[in-house]
């Protein structure tokens, strides 16, 4: 027991080093690692600068290379490369250009000389001592790890997590998601910043005096330079403190918090409806391939893909509300009947694409060997279809759901406008007529964040479900 523990302790620093060497190959993670262990790195960087910096490596390498170039081996190489060049030109029936030949031979020989010089140096145990490998060597030292453990705890957690395949995958995806979210905020802000329209003139009207405009610009920080405004905007998005909108003086974070739930509820309900309706349809179509059922379901699905949301909404209102008085035409929070039409309208496209995807992915697996085996074992067709085929066909279906969910949140603006729902989509559209830059920025970025998080969850589920990816992660 004791010895096992001791062994583990001894292994830990080496594992840190191994993970470390893996991480510094990826640029994004390299910088993240430095950022996480910043206190430790600052100290070691100083030590490195003071003690180890006089790196004579480059100098030595040059010297060694010169030595190689003066040796007879080098001339042999040149001759060999020149011969190669001649026979190549002869083969292609091209004339020999002496100058080019010499240049090319020299270039190739130089490369080889450098490699040889490097090999000689490493034989003499002289290593390239850049900072990052230097730090890696420090990690091998248990005393260093112990001393730096508290200030560098974040970095060590990261290094530890990196060694578990599943955790590493989740970590990588998380880092990517954060990167994407911040970049989206910067990107959308930049687009809106470079808008040719002047918000002060738009909102105060043409009659406003110069002082009034300056006052307005000062109030909303529009007189600051680009980078300051950008930093403010990103900070505001992260801390949910976005200030006030240009018109109406409403708190943006509060109004988004008010409007987001209904948008999400409708989207989630549509998603549930789509899954419940579409997967059985897809299974039936695949099971009875080329039958009248298959043709009609797929034809209807294709029509479902082709109907614009707003037109479908209008036709529903015309029939269900105006002609037959079954459902209310506009949404009201207290009436659950009024949510039915928006959900159906928003879910139609998703239903159609899930049904088509289910059909095609089941058809792809239905001829696999394991299905034939299941048939040969005498399993019932229904069991084969649901337990064997659908389970394996599920992966592309989940991907489509994840992708389409984003499109649905984006498309919600149109549906919300048709049914007069005051959700986030119609908030953005209303604000863009002003145009009220901070509100648009916040609305678009929060929707993008939601979509990124949903995609993150989908990716993780995907990795958990898919044995192929799991084994790939373990072997890498």
């Amino acid at each position: 027991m004791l010895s096992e523990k001791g062994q583990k302790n001894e292994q830990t620093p080496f594992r840190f080093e191994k993970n470390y060497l893996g991480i510094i190959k990826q640029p994004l993670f390299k910088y993240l690692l430095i950022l996480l262990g910043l206190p430790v790195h600052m100290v070691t960087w100083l030590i490195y600068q003071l003690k180890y910096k006089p790196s004579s490596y480059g100098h030595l390498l040059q010297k060694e290379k010169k030595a190689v170039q003066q040796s007879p081996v080098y001339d042999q190489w040149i001759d060999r490369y020149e011969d190669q060049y001649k026979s190549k030109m002869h083969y292609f029936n091209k004339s020999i250009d002496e100058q080019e030949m010499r240049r090319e031979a020299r270039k190739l020989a130089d490369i080889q000389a450098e490699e040889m010089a490097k090999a000689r140096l490493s034989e003499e145990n002289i290593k390239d001592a850049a900072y990052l490998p230097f730090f890696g060597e420090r990690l091998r030292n248990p005393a260093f790890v112990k001393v730096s453990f508290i200030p560098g705890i974040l970095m060590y957690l990261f290094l530890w997590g990196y060694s578990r395949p599943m955790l590493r995958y989740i970590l990588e995806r998380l880092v990517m998601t954060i990167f994407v979210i911040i970049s989206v905020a910067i990107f959308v802000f930049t687009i809106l910043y470079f808008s040719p329209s002047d918000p002060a003139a738009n909102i105060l009207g043409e009659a406003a005096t110069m002082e009034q405009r300056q006052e307005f610009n000062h109030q909303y920080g529009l007189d600051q330079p680009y980078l300051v405004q950008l930093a403010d905007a990103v900070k505001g998005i992260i801390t949910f403190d976005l200030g006030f909108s240009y018109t109406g003086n409403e708190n943006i974070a509060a109004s988004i918090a008010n409007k987001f739930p209904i948008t999400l509820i409708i989207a989630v309900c549509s998603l549930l409806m789509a899954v419940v309706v579409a997967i059985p349809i897809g299974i039936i179509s695949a099971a009875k391939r080329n039958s009248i059922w298959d043709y009609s379901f797929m034809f209807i699905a294709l029509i479902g893909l082709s109907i614009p949301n707003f037109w479908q909404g209008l036709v529903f209102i015309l029939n269900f509300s105006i002609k037959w008085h079954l459902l209310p035409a506009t949404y009201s929070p207290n009436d659950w009947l009024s949510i039915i039409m928006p959900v159906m309208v928003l879910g139609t496209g998703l239903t159609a694409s899930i049904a088509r995807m289910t059909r095609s992915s089941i058809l792809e697996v239905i001829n696999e060997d394991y299905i034939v085996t299941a048939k040969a074992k005498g399993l019932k067709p229904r069991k084969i279809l649901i337990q064997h085929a659908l389970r394996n066909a599920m992966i592309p279906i989940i991907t489509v759901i994840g992708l389409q969910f984003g499109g649905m949140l984006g498309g919600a603006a149109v549906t919300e406008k048709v049914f007069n729902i005051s959700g986030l989509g119609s908030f953005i559209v209303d604000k863009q007529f002003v145009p009220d830059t901070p509100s648009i920025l916040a609305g678009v970025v929060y929707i993008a964040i939601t979509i990124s998080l949903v995609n993150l969850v989908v990716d993780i589920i995907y990795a958990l479900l898919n044995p192929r990816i799991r084994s790939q992660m373990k072997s890498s």
Partner: protein
Amino acid sequence: MTTQQEFALKQSQQYKNANFSVCLSFALTLLFLFNAYDFAQGTWNFVWGIVTAAYFVISILQGAIALLLKKDLLTYGAIQKRTRLLSAVQLLSLFAGNLFTAAFAFRMLKKKDSIEYTLAYYMFLTQFLVFAISLFNLFKPYVSNLFMPAMILLIFAMVIELFLVIILAKTDVEQGVKPLLKWLGIIVFLTGLTGNVFGLILGYSLVMKSRSNDASTIDKWNQFWMSMTNNFTAMLGFLFVFLMLAISIASYGTFVSSFATENDYGALLLEPSLAHPFGTDNFGRDVFSRIVFGARISLVVGLLTTLIPLVIGGFLGAISGYYQKSIDNIIMRCLDVLYAVPGILLAIAIIAAFGSSTFNLIIALSVGSIPTYARTMRANVLIVSNLEFVEAAKALGENEWKIIFKQIVPNAFAPMIVKASLTIGSAVIATSSLSFLGLGVEPHIPEWGNILKIGSMYLETNPHLAIFPGIAIILLVLSFNFLGDGLRDALDPKLDS
């Protein structure tokens, strides 16, 4: 039923086509019947009643033909002459506007399926429809100055095409193209320039087959178009898209643009009639003319918002797929950022910043779909760049850019075409959605989303104002989707067997 008979039935494309036409024809009959009866007053509309009756007769006839076909295939294993003659009667259904049965009748007239014959009769159908739609202008108070010459040209083109259909029905192009056909091919190619793209394809096919000795090129062409022409829904998709293209070009001569754009306060919100087939809107503008003129904008915006990201995304995808590692990482991470924002929202943000105009709309929608094209291209380039011929080109010391754009990209392009044809539909929907929100094309331009926006204000009193432009959008998007499915079946090697 023996397996052999079953096989004959399953293999017969004509039988499938017949059944499909019966279904569509019946569906249309029911739709017209629904329209003919006024539920509120319990009365029958005379005009709709006649149309319904005509479609009912056509559907019954089509059903009889389908049954005969089945019997033929089961007893003789081949279609009999009697059935073909009966379906020739079905050609008359063209005058009732039933394309499905008419196209089927044309198909039955030739024993062996032929690409050129199929293209020819679809070309004729397109020209006929353009002519018929233009004829509605006769009910207007006046016609445009160019109306007569344009109509004469259309009739002339129709006669040539009918002549070509008859010739192609009697000859077998696979035996060799006669000089007469080659010259006809050139003429048809020229008429194709009026927007009837079937003509371009047919003319190219005839001229190529008469001149080219390269059997592999001809074989590839034949295989692709055989697969397309056999696919009834894909051909219907082609038909509608080319019809829209042809009508938007023909409308320069045959339609009066002031009916679509200028206000007429004497004719506000009229019900549909012969002079105004889809009624008039709140400014007295003729909705039918507006929809015809709107086809131009929807097509141009749809095509451009597909073409621009196709080129940019394809280029970026090819580069990042070929150069790997750092360049790949930089390009794909930047595109991930674009990918995280839904297309419509990104478009709204761009339009909020730069104002709503057609140009900004095209840019805004294009930017949003660059990442999907780049991903598709990258995935294909990754596969193709590991193949032997690329390695051979590298070994020969070929320039890297030449390797990418001459060797790899052409071989990785098929999925891009399929992707493009499937996304034109969503581009059309996105355009009209943004116009509907008031963010797209300028409100005075007759664009389908704009027409629908006006219609949505009169939903209770004049619902047809919202329904007709919506149907136009659906048909166009549906056609592009049919086309995309057909292209995928024709280009995807996985489904070859």
